[in-house]
Each structure stands twice: as C-alpha cells, then as structure tokens.
C-alpha cells in the first residue's frame, strides 16, 4: 500500500447557495474521510467549515453524507473506496446548512426538550433508586446513542417532508421515549395521565414512522432502533389505544385494585 491521490467533491456554500467543488487530495494508509477533509482544510481550502471533535466515533460531531449515505466522517475508512472512485462529501441534507459541511441541528435540541424527563416514583429520593439489571438492560442499549443525528437525517419522514418536522420527533427521540417507557422506575403515568407510549403516539408522531429501518441502517453505534425501540413502542401504543382486549383487561385490573 502507498499514498495516492483521491478525487473528492465537497459541497461548499451556505444557506444562500453553493455547489460541489472538485479537489485532488493525498491519501495515506489507514486514513479516514475526516483525515482527508482536514488535509484539504490545511492545504487547498483553508476556509472549509467542518464540525468535528473526538475523531473516535464517540462525540457524534462529524456527521455528513459520503457518496450520498449519512455517515460519520471519522469512522469511514478510505480503504472502503476504490482508488479511482470520486468521493462526494456533503452536509446532512435534512437540516438547514450553516456553511460548507456544517448544518444547523437545533431541530433536534427542540425535539429533545419536548420529551418530559424521567419522573421518579413518589417517596423515592435521588440516590435511593434500586433496579435489577435485567430490568434496565433494554434501556441501556439506547443509552449508547452519541446523538450524531444520522438517524434523524436519514429518516424520510422529515428528510423528504419539511412540513412534518413540527409533528414528528424522529427516531432518536422516539427511542428516548421508549427508553423511559421501559424504565422500571419511571412514574410519568403514575397519576393516571397518559403513558409514555400514548404520548409517543399523540404528541411525538410515532404513527408517522413506517418502520423502514433506515435509522437502524445508519446508526454508528449499531443500536437496533427499529426492532428494539420503535416497534416495541408501537406495540405499547397499541396496548393503550387500539387493542380493546388489553384496554378492557387493564380497566378490570384497575378496578380490582
């Protein structure tokens, strides 16, 4: 193996406009796309804007679209491309662009704020929470999320339909609802209010999800977002809203208490 020159097409511009610009950049063994973007920044495009931080796939900052696929630049090895391949790097296409490869992802922070936090059971103070490991391990898978927002970017509900951004929280935050709904101590519905699953359906747009699994495909943490969070959440919403037998059973049990 040796160094070679790769052809890159990088989107340059801002919210007013822009386009793809061609660059020939040196590539060395073991490098990732972010290395090449940094070399480009150091040599040919010193004003290129790119967001990055840990370079280890843990901070979720360097999300971009590489050859049209949402990926982390720091986790995309150059060795997955052929040497004669033109590599196209663009910003995330579901969010407004700020400049070059940097997008405004504040949509996601707004959605995060819409989800009520964990509600501890009455009479249990912080530091007194006690849970069995088997009861929390489902939720722990979702805690691996690094909030790179690749799942939010690839989800066609908002990517292809800007108008749905108001009603739909997106896979990352529906997964957060699922995490809380499966939490053994969460008491959000203890006062007889809506359960997390009901509010997922009514307030966070769970019904928009047509489980096409793109969120799972792009997740760099390999979280089974669809199978372990979204579908179980849909089933829990069915329990509360669409299944007359479960609804009747819960009423009878409640009366017997």
């Amino acid at each position, binding site marked *: 193996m040796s160094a070679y020159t790769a052809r890159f097409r990088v989107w340059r511009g801002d919210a007013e406009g822009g386009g793809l610009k061609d660059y020939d950049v040196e590539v060395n063994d073991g490098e990732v796309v972010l290395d090449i973007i940094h070399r480009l920044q150091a040599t040919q495009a010193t004003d290129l804007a790119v967001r990055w931080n840990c370079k280890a796939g843990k901070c979720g900052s360097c999300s971009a679209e590489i050859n049209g696929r949402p990926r982390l630049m720091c986790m995309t090895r150059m060795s997955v491309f052929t040497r004669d391949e033109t590599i196209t790097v663009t910003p995330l296409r579901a969010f407004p662009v700020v400049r070059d490869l940097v997008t*405004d992802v504040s949509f996601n922070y707004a959605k995060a704020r819409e989800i009520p936090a964990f509600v501890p059971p009455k009479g249990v103070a912080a530091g007194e929470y006690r849970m069995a490991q088997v009861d929390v391990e489902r939720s722990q898978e979702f805690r691996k999320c690094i909030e790179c927002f690749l799942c939010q970017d690839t989800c066609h509900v908002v990517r292809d339909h800007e108008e749905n951004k108001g*009603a739909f929280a997106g896979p990352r935050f529906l997964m957060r609802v699922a995490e809380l709904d499966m939490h053994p101590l969460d008491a959000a519905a203890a006062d007889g209010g809506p359960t997390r699953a009901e509010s997922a359906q009514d307030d966070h747009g769970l019904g928009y999800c047509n489980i096409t699994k793109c969120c799972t495909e792009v997740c760099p943490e390999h979280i089974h977002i669809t*199978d372990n969070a979204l579908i179980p959440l849909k*089933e829990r*919403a069915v329990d509360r809203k669409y299944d007359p037998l479960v609804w009747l059973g819960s009423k009878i049990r409640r009366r017997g208490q």
Partner: protein
Amino acid sequence: MATGTTSSTPSSTPPGTPPSTSPAGPARIAHGVGSPGRAAISAPHLRTDRWWLPPLVSALGLAAFIGYSTWRAFANTHYYAAPYVSPFYSPCLASNCTDMNGGADWHLFGNWWGLSPALLVLIFPLGFRLTCYYYRKTYYRAFWLSPPACAVAEPHASYTGETRLPLILQNIHRYFFYLAVVVAGILSYDTVLAFRDPHGNWGHAGLGTLVLLVNIILIWAYTLSCHSCRHIIGGKLRHFSAHPVRYRMWGWVGVLNGRHMLLAWSSLISVGVADLYVYLVSSGAFDDPRFF
C-alpha cells in the same frame, strides 16, 4: 396535527427551520432535500452504490408469490393428493372441498359458498403478512417507494405514514398473529396426517411429508418471531425480574425475531413450494417418492 409539545418553542417552527430566502438553483426541487435553507444540491440523492437492487429484488419476489398464490387460490383444483393437503386449502371451511380423509374439514360456510375454499382461509395468513413489520418495511420501500432506499428521496409530495386510515389499521397486527397461530396449528395437524400412506395407514412417509414438515417448521418459526409475539410474550413488561419465565421466553423469541426477515422469506417460499408439490403430485406430473 398532533404536536402536544411541552416546549416553549412553537412546534410549527422549531429552531433549525430554514430561512425564507431561497438558494435554489434552476433545477432544484422545492421540497424535501430541496427545501429552502438546506444545502443547494439539485440531485435527489447522491448514492453511488446499487441502492435500487434490494427493493427491486423484493418487488420481483413478492410479485412472483402474489401471482402464483392468486392463481392457485382461485384454481380450486389439485390441492389434495392423499395424504397431503396444500397449505393454501387447509382448513376447508366450505362444503365444496375434495374429501381429505381425516383432514381439517370444517364446513362452517356450508354449501352456499361457490368460490374456491382457499379464499376463506388465505385471508388470515395474508392479513398476518400484510401487517407484519418486516413486510411493511419491504413493500413500503419496494412498491410505494416511501422511501425506495435510505437517503434516496421519495417521489411523494406529502406523507402521513400510519397516522390515519387506511394505514392506521396496521395496528391490528397482533390479532392476525393470534389467527396465524391457529392456522399454524391446523397446518401442524396436516403435517402429522402426512405420516400416513395414501390409504390412511400410519407410520409412513414420503418426500411430501418432508416438504410439509420443513414448511411447518418455517411457518412456526416465522410466526413466533413476530414482533407482536415478542411484545405479548414479555416485551410489554417493565419488570422482567418479577417474571423470570416470561423473560426467558422473551429472550428466545428475541433470537428468532433477529432472523425475522430470513424467516419471512423462507416461510413464504416454503409455503409456495409445499403447495406446488401437492399440485404436481395431485395433477399426476410425478409420483410422490415414498421413504417407508
């Protein structure tokens, strides 16, 4: 619009909503990835891999099965070759069926039903597969292109998903699961009956027995790997520690559930092959090889 936000931010204009100025180029679409404020790229996608192959293969596979099963369901002939009954025609719920020597003949619909009796039965597995989470993903991608592949723009101008009729009816999947368990039980009974010779004597088997046996194993594996089954068995619980048996069963179903796609396709193929085998034997295309 169901937003129900608790944020002080108006839900219709969350932060990150693009400015009203349009940077659109001459050929740029004005919605989706071409919405104002997003990176000005005229191409609906920039994928360079063969993203179109999986939806194409899925569409062809499903179309082939739909075509074959429609023909066989309406054919109303060559569905019994003693001791084998086609899975498309069991149980028989009308009195216009061929006598199936101990088979699942329950003439609930009497003799007024003049069409193929398969139509009375196939509605259940059809509904189960139509509302299955895996098949939904597949046909949403392959037939409705919603989306055709990840990060490939879908062609529709608007999208409401499964929030309203008719797609909100996908939520009845668990009821089709219950019915699918009943159907799988009846097909298991048919497989047991296949351990006879053509005259009804027990303790015999032929190639058809093996075909039906493989089919029913795959049918059960697919049925039990269902996401609704996983939920009912234990997924709905919040405290696994209080239900150790259900937790163990939930883990087993989870293992199957991880192979749901594989089982969906393999059981779809096996049920078609089982029917085709019965058809070929019944029509005299070849004789069933007997093992013992």
